[in-house]
């Protein structure tokens, strides 16, 4: 057992440790049970689900890039009812073992977010909180995601806030962070997840076509990490609500950078594909680092960057 207390309170969600999983990279949790005991994690965040199932985009949906990957899954999901039917029992059980289950909410419009969140609120008593994904780079209908302006993000939050008393988080697009973060805080967001994939483009220069079925996709992996750390730092300084850092976490040191920059929790994404058990390895490395820093509580290290 570690000598460091690793428990954190992230936006009203009690986590036994700061390690969370990034939506879309961890399925609904049970996919990983053959690789490690998922209940060791502080939280998991489930794939974004809408009120109705979505088919997602045509193939190819993924391509590798230097230092990461790019996807255009397009939020394929079974809908909230599908999630509950398929994975509800598992998630309820996971929650009972003390791992917070954060359900991500998907939509194309304010109305759709409201509809999905209402279903989640009703059907998922085991959910510790909800994360509004206003920033998926792969579903934006002919333009930017609705979370890419302060007004757009605030509108979604304003409509969703009354629906639940449980913690409501927002997954942020990697644009205009401090501004949008302040707008979301003002509308009652309990916490912010920073950042979603950065839109990118990879062209097959022989066929002259995108390597995905859409011109652009969302980037993940180590290539994002220094950008994401900077964005977490900017957001943590701009608002008083807590932040979950996401982007390119492959090691405990990567997670530690987020914590020092001001994150209360850290999500592991693409790393889950490289090594399905990496989230617990990262947790162990984070604990060892905290111990090496001579603290008794990980909370002492949140935002402890000296500058």
């Amino acid at each position: 057992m570690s000598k460091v207390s690793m428990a954190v309170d992230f936006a009203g969600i009690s986590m036994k440790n700061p390690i969370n999983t990034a939506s879309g990279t961890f399925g609904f949790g049970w996919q990983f049970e053959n690789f490690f005991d998922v209940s060791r994690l502080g939280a998991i965040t489930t794939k974004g689900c809408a009120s109705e199932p979505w088919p997602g985009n045509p193939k190819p949906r993924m391509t590798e890039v230097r230092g990461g990957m790019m996807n255009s899954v397009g939020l394929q999901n079974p809908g909230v009812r599908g999630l509950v039917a398929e994975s509800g029992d598992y998630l309820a059980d996971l929650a009972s073992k003390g791992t917070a289950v954060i359900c991500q909410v998907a939509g194309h419009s304010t109305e759709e977010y409201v509809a999905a969140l209402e279903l989640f609120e009703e059907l998922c008593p085991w959910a510790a909180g909800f994360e509004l994904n206003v920033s998926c780079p792969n579903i934006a209908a002919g333009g930017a995601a609705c979370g890419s302006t302060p007004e757009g993000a605030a509108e979604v939050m304003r409509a969703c806030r009354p629906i639940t008393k449980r913690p409501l988080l927002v997954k942020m697009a990697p644009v205009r962070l401090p501004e949008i973060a302040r707008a979301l805080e003002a509308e009652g967001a309990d916490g912010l997840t920073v950042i979603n994939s950065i839109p990118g483009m990879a062209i097959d220069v022989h066929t002259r076509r995108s390597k995905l079925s859409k011109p652009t996709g969302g980037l993940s992996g180590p290539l994002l990490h220094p950008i994401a750390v900077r964005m977490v730092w900017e957001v943590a300084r701009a608002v008083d609500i807590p932040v979950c850092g996401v982007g390119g976490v492959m090691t405990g040191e990567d997670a530690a950078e987020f914590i020092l920059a001001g994150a209360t929790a850290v999500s592991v994404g693409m790393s889950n594909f490289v090594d399905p058990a990496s989230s617990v390895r990262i947790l162990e490395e984070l604990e060892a680092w905290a111990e090496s820093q001579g603290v008794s509580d990980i909370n002492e290290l949140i935002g402890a960057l000296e500058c």
Partner: protein
Amino acid sequence: MPTPSPARKHTFTVVSNDEIADGIFSLVISAPELARAIKPGQFVNIAVPGNAMSLLRVPLSYESADPEAGTVTIWYAVVGDGTRRLSQMGAGSTSDLLGPGGRGWTVPEGCGRALLVAGGIGVPPVLCLARELASAGIAFDVCLGSATAGKLVGVEDFKRLGAASVSICTDDGSEGHCGFCTDPASELLAQGGYGYVATCGPEPMMAKVAAASADAGVPCEASLERMMSCGFGACATCAVETTGGMKGACMCGPVFDAKEVVW
């Protein structure tokens, strides 16, 4: 809880890794538990070392497994950086893989005679199936297609397994018939008598085989390829459009009922 992928993490050691045709390698790995667990049509997802900028695994079917020796044989074409690095792994080098993954072939009970149609590097999973058919005493014909003679693999293996016939087609006519292996396959299907068709290869080829099978009223299975990020149902990058909606190639496939696939 829904059933997770049967895949586990296995470390493996390379036993041999030889070029068996132009740009096509046969990799034999030692991974005893995997060798006992894997079933024809399933795949493994291999971590190939050597390029820190390239992080994802390489998904590959297998050609045969020897549970006694604890080895698994994989045939792969060098097409990009991952497979190029794989071709550089010498005997004795080690890494890890996730496997066995996915759903393999399901030969109908008492299917009588089977037709196997494989194009390019689609041969390994089909050869793996042929081995199972042979040991179950099910007769089978084989249609093989390749761009050119130098890239043709498996001919002798199918014969050795007792294939009733092996039709060979090459795009450039350098061996067998000049043309696509879907032609002899359609002819054979039209002659009748088949209870099962299995195919793996380029998607347009499989689509034709699926259509010909449907015309002949014979059940057909196809092994599909998709870009995979995880290989165990967690990412949805491997989706295949089916009549029943999007289905993950890594969990519901790679082998699909060809009738269900929206080609």
